[in-house]
């Protein structure tokens, strides 16, 4: 079992990879994946902290987060598919009807 600090560093790296991916990549599907990466970074922490402190709360949380992530990505993919049908692209740069 690695020390909690090591896990913390790995999870922060994962988290920053996710944030960077969302900011840099222009493909909606890759952005979706990066959002999942952020959630999983937090998940990793939960399990490490739960192992470290010996409480089960964190592990239960990790299991639930996996469920949330699945539900979230289902809706996200549905929106991407709906958009693809209208615009035939998943590049977010081509999707610019709204101003902001």
């Amino acid at each position, binding site marked *: 079992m690695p020390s909690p600090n090591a896990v913390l560093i790995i999870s922060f790296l994962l988290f920053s990879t996710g944030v960077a991916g969302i900011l840099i990549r222009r493909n909606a599907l890759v952005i979706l994946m990066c959002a999942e990466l952020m959630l999983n970074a937090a998940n990793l922490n939960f399990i490490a902290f739960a192992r470290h402190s010996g409480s089960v709360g964190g592990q239960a949380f990790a299991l639930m987060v996996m469920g949330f992530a699945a*539900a*979230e990505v289902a809706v996200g993919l549905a929106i*991407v598919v709906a*958009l693809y049908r209208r615009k035939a692209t998943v590049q977010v740069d081509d999707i610019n009807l709204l*101003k902001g």
Partner: protein
Amino acid sequence: MNSALPTSAQWAALMPILFPALAAAVIPLALLDRDAGVQKWIRAGVYAVALFALGASFMFLAELGKQSSQPSYQQLRLDYLAQFTGIFIVVAAALAVLQSWDHFHQEGWVKGETISLLLFSVSGMMVFASTTNLLVLFLGLELFSIPLYALTATLRSRSSSSEGGLKYFITGAVAAACFLMGIVILYGLTGTLDISVMRLQAGTPLADPLFIVGIGLLLVGFLFKVSAVPFHQWTPDVYVASPHPIAGFMSVATKGVAIVALIRAFPGLTAWGPVLGPKVQGVFMLVAVLTLVVANLTALVQTSAKRMLAYSSISHAGYLVLGLVAGTPGALTGMLFYLAIYLAMNMGAFGLFTAFGLVGEKDTYEDLRGLGWKHPLMGLCAALILFSLAGVPPLGGFYGKYMIFKELVATGHVNLAILGVLASLVSMGYYLRFIVALFLQAPTQAQEREATEAPVIQASLARGTVLVGAILVVAGGFMQTVLVDGFAHRAIQGLLGLR
């Protein structure tokens, strides 16, 4: 462990959440029938079931309030604050359901799933507002956010709608991930998931800068849902992209529950100890100032009235966060009163678009020209609602702001109170533009021609909701003591344990 069925007292805590959730689960089953003739009746049935579920939930919550009981089930605590919020959400959802009947018929896109998603969102919001456990809080957050992503993109025939949905989804997913990261850091440092227990330990792990990072990430999640600057960029696009009733519901209910959750997590400044308390207050102060300045100035230059309303809803988040800066029980009570009036104002304001029969992209000031004279009653309601949004004295919106500003002055934040008053004055500019378009600008010839050719607008339900909004706004001005003393005051007293 605890596998026994809930007792009857525990059921009481679950019922208001279960009614909308059950209705939401049943509705999609009814939609399987493909026969067009039958479907018309099924749709009417779907709306009836939704209103029935919301009504049942409302009656239940009202009864709980009358008996002054505060049932709880495991991590769900239906205290006075949760009951207040529950009624707030249910009323907003009922108004949204009524408006969406008219709006979706105007758009020619009536689908039962929309209502089902809306009800799921309602039960998620109730969970979100009635817990201090971060696990359940996150469950509530996802349960109300995910249906809202889909609701934004619900008009699949229009690509701007899907685009708004995608934007909302990506920003929302990032905010949720930040929120989750905040939770995990706080959990790692304190070993508990309950934020009220965490608060008690706030004195000890303070030396750890990670604790501040955790609180900060948690705040990002909350402030995103409140749509305060600098986490507001999604708001205008998403509101413009979503159907009018859904935009109204999002602006009211999402902001409302997020503010209530903030009140629960940061009740007063002393709650987080002498070191962290002022830091959190500083963040709120910064956010409130930025929100008021940016939102009001951007709203002035909008050409779309719906976009203007989106920026106006951001600026109202600023006034609400000012209440958190003051942090006294009086200010928190004022915030709840403000939320109740804000519900009437914003559901009314977004309902106006449906009441005037403006569908699709027709949401600019140009499209509103002369409509006030064409529909005199709606014009009057519009004027009342918009003046209340601007905070003109005898109306409800004024008293909401007044209660918050009064506490700000009392706690020594005179500068912020002055900024708030100035922001309200600026906001007068864009609300007046709406009213000017309604009454003082004659419709163009093309619009006149279009109006004579178009079929008569069927929007009696939406007009009813706008009327209700206007009546509530006036009532909030003249009978605010009923609402404040009866509900808001008790909710805050119960939360802070003052009674």
